[in-house]
């Protein structure tokens, strides 16, 4: 309960400050709406079903891109890390592609897949894939050799090596990679939705701009921020605690 209060209190303070600033300086509603106006716009968007549908779209996209991106990223990371020759060839190329965000690929993706849902998901997937892949490679490479030797002298085969030693050993890096990748992917997702216009929260706030529905824009932004915060709080951080911290690999 105290934890919950501590998580919510800073936001309560922030909203209060916002309300005061808007009231005191008489900011016009179409420049910066009051928290109250935003709440009304929020309720309105939910009642009409727009916000729920668009939020659903966005969540589906991030889940699809994140689950497949993380899974394939980890697998590819292992493939690269365990083959020295592959690593020598692939790593410089991977570094190059990692520096290109999924947004920079959008024009090309649009040419390939059109203004479609597919284009958005592929852009997010791309953005997420490389940090996961890269971190997995680093993670696998940093597992101390002596652990591998220990498993070999206990009679372990390569499957044991991967699942008992390398995977758990690389977990801190992999979780870090997923966190970074998902955070990048989330940003790219909103941006791509704005550009593509095939639904989603990005499209929701961009369309609201056309009608000067400022309160609706802010309501959409709050939804975007809150969704990420909840994901981090309820999924990513518990994941980290369940693995890394329990093993004493990281101390808070």
């Amino acid at each position: 309960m105290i934890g919950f209060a501590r998580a919510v209190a800073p936001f309560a303070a922030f909203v209060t400050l916002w309300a005061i600033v808007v009231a005191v300086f008489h900011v016009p509603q179409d420049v910066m709406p009051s928290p109250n106006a935003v709440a009304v716009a929020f309720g309105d968007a939910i009642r009409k079903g727009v916000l729920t549908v668009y939020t659903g779209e966005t969540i589906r996209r991030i889940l699809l891109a994140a689950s497949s991106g993380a899974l394939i990223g980890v697998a590819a990371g292992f493939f690269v890390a365990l083959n020295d020759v592959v690593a020598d060839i692939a790593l410089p190329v991977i570094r190059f592609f990692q520096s290109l965000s999924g947004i920079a690929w959008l024009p090309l993706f649009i040419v390939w897949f059109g203004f479609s849902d597919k284009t958005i998901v592929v852009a997010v997937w791309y953005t997420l894939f490389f940090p996961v892949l890269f971190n997995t490679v680093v993670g696998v490479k940093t597992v101390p050799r002596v652990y591998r030797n220990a498993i070999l002298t206990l009679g372990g085969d390569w499957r044991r090596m991967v699942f008992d030693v390398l995977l758990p050993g690389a977990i801190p890096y992999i979780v870090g990679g997923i966190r970074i990748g998902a955070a990048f992917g989330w940003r790219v997702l909103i941006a791509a939705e704005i550009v593509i216009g095939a639904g989603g929260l990005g499209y929701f706030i961009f369309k609201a701009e056309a009608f000067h529905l400022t309160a609706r824009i802010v309501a959409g932004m709050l939804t975007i921020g809150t969704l990420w915060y909840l994901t981090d709080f309820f999924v990513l951080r518990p994941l980290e605690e369940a693995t890394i911290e329990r093993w004493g690999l990281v101390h808070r």
Partner: protein
Amino acid sequence: MPSKITVENVSHEYFNPNTWQRVHALDGLSLEVADGEFLCIVGPSGCGKSTFLYLVAGLAHASSGRILVDGKQVERPGRDRGMVFQDFAILPWRTVERNIGHGLEIAGVARKERDTIVRRYIELMGLSGFENKYPYELSGGMRQRVAVARTLAADPQVVLMDEPFAALDAQTRNVMQEELVRIGMHERKTILFVTHSVDEAVILGDRVVVLTHRPGRVKASIPIEIPREQRRWDVLGAEEQFGRYRQDILRLIREEFDAQERVTA
């Protein structure tokens, strides 16, 4: 007694990527180890003692010569040759219990039997009450006890120990040495124990082999004729016999150390 391990004229060279140099670690090392023998290997630092254990374990391949265990040439690591490493190589993400049972898990031993064996080693090693702790919650001494238990629980015929107690404080080290003597009496295993401590070699070994300076060869092989029951620090520390062995071996190592200095000078 039949020979468990036969080492024939083994030489080993490897490339050290840190110093960018070829290291000539062993040069024509030959050795016979009897079944059930506790053999300690000492020598000046850098004489290739650890390299030798890695070769027997199959974690490295000899440049020339061959190593036979039960008449079969060593080609790769296997569960018949367990190894305890210098830096506690137990897995941080497994509890004490699951670390000790890891070898049995790999061997496909049924859950129930595994638990019984793990329980026995937890008691033998004085780890009761720590079954569900993770390594980071343990002291250095306890971690190494987990490592020793893990290797013994997998029931290898040959146990290779690479300065397993070097990182422990003196008190813990003495306790561990006495425990190992006790375990050695209970379970007849062939043990190769590498150490730089002459005291440790004499209290543990049925025989002590002194290696020359690098590239290592066998300089001397000294049977230690002290009954295992008497190998306790409170008894042995004062023994005249113990002191004589100690002096002899120290002198041999000293000769090699001096020779090494002459070579490098």
